[in-house]
């Protein structure tokens, strides 16, 4: 990991993203007041608002050539982007949770301490998990095309799932049914206690995250950086 790259990613956040985050915060709190619960899954939204185009924008803005003229491994670059998005989103999610719990305390619906601790851990898992998927998708398309790609995958997955509903293709059905899990690892745990998560689910989570990161590094290693062919 390269701290210079991580710090540059922090500093680059555009005001539009901050405005979107503020909207998410505010609408989130209406839900909290209505349903008396604060969910760590909001972290996934923060990942996408903060991280869309995290690599794609470097490609479209043409800054990669100068960056990779330096003694930096492409794997280092990928990990730094992953860490930057994961850390920023986690910090925001913790802030969101803290303010949400304050609202619940004020409404006389205080959550249990164990539940709060679990939510903090789940926030980290969801943010870093989703960030891994985002980083890979961002290596595939320029600009913020990764956002469009994510929605396209979700939509295609849903359509295909309906189409194969009548077939007996268990592996295909399992894959399509779990697209959300692949794109947002850890999201399904947000109403559960840490002790309720099975060993298989834990292994699955870490396996998905490492697969995304490996694919992202592979894509960056293969990527050719030139405007010569245009």
């Amino acid at each position, binding site marked *: 990991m390269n701290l210079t790259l991580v710090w540059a990613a922090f500093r680059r956040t555009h005001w539009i993203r901050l405005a979107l985050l503020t909207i998410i915060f505010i609408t989130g709190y209406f839900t909290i007041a209505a*349903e*008396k*619960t604060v969910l760590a899954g909001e972290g996934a939204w923060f990942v996408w608002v903060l991280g869309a185009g995290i690599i794609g924008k470097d490609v479209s803005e043409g800054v990669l050539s100068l960056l*990779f003229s330096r*003694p*930096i*491994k*492409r*794997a280092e670059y990928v990990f730094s982007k992953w860490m930057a998005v994961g850390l920023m989103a986690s910090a925001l999610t913790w802030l969101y949770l803290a303010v949400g719990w304050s609202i619940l305390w004020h409404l006389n619906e205080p959550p*249990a301490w164990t*539940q709060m601790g679990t939510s903090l851990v789940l926030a980290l898992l969801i943010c870093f998990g989703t960030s891994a998927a985002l980083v890979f998708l961002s290596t595939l398309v320029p600009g913020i095309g990764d956002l469009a790609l994510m929605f396209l995958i979700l939509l295609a997955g849903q359509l295909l*799932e*309906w189409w194969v*509903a*009548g077939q007996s293709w268990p592996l295909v059905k399992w894959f399509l*049914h779990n697209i959300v899990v692949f794109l947002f690892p850890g999201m*399904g*745990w947000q*109403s*559960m206690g840490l002790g*309720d998560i099975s*060993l*298989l689910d834990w*292994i*699955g989570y*870490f*396996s998905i995250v*490492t*697969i995304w*990161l*490996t694919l992202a*590094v*592979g894509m960056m*290693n*293969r990527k050719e950086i030139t405007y010569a062919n245009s």
Partner: protein
Amino acid sequence: MRILNSDPHSSKEMPSWLMGLTFLLFLAWVGSAIYNNAHPAPAAAQDLVRWQTFSDADNQWKRGTKPILYDFSAAWCGPCQQMKKDVFGDQKTADWINQSFIPVSALDRQQEDGKNSPEVEALQKQYDIQAFPTLVVKFPNGSFKTQVGYDSQEKTIQFLQEQLADLKPGSASASTP
């Protein structure tokens, strides 16, 4: 260009530790899934609530003594399973529900079968079910109250108690589980 460049001096190195970790985790994941399939866990989260059929529930409800408790859920829904384990799988709570309500399970089968039974479909429309789990308490006078989502056993029991407290005295047990 090598696909898996493990030269530590190369800027295009694929770190061996990442490759190794990814491979091992993937193997462990596949292995655990195969093992779990071959050795299914003993029937956990045993549901101790005596769920009624739709028609039996309707007939009992018409007597006006107890409210119906509809449980709208789905097999794929994690929080639904959690509620099933914490609330319906707890002997004391299950006994209290059996005593105080007419419990009806409206299980969504859209994912598995592509459609629901006519009764479940009608109930989902009637109560505008948007998420799972949703608990609906239908009072003898026809009005109803809803709880969307699952937070904790305590909150769910509290919700059910509040609904019973709204009932006229003598028509159902307002006792605690």
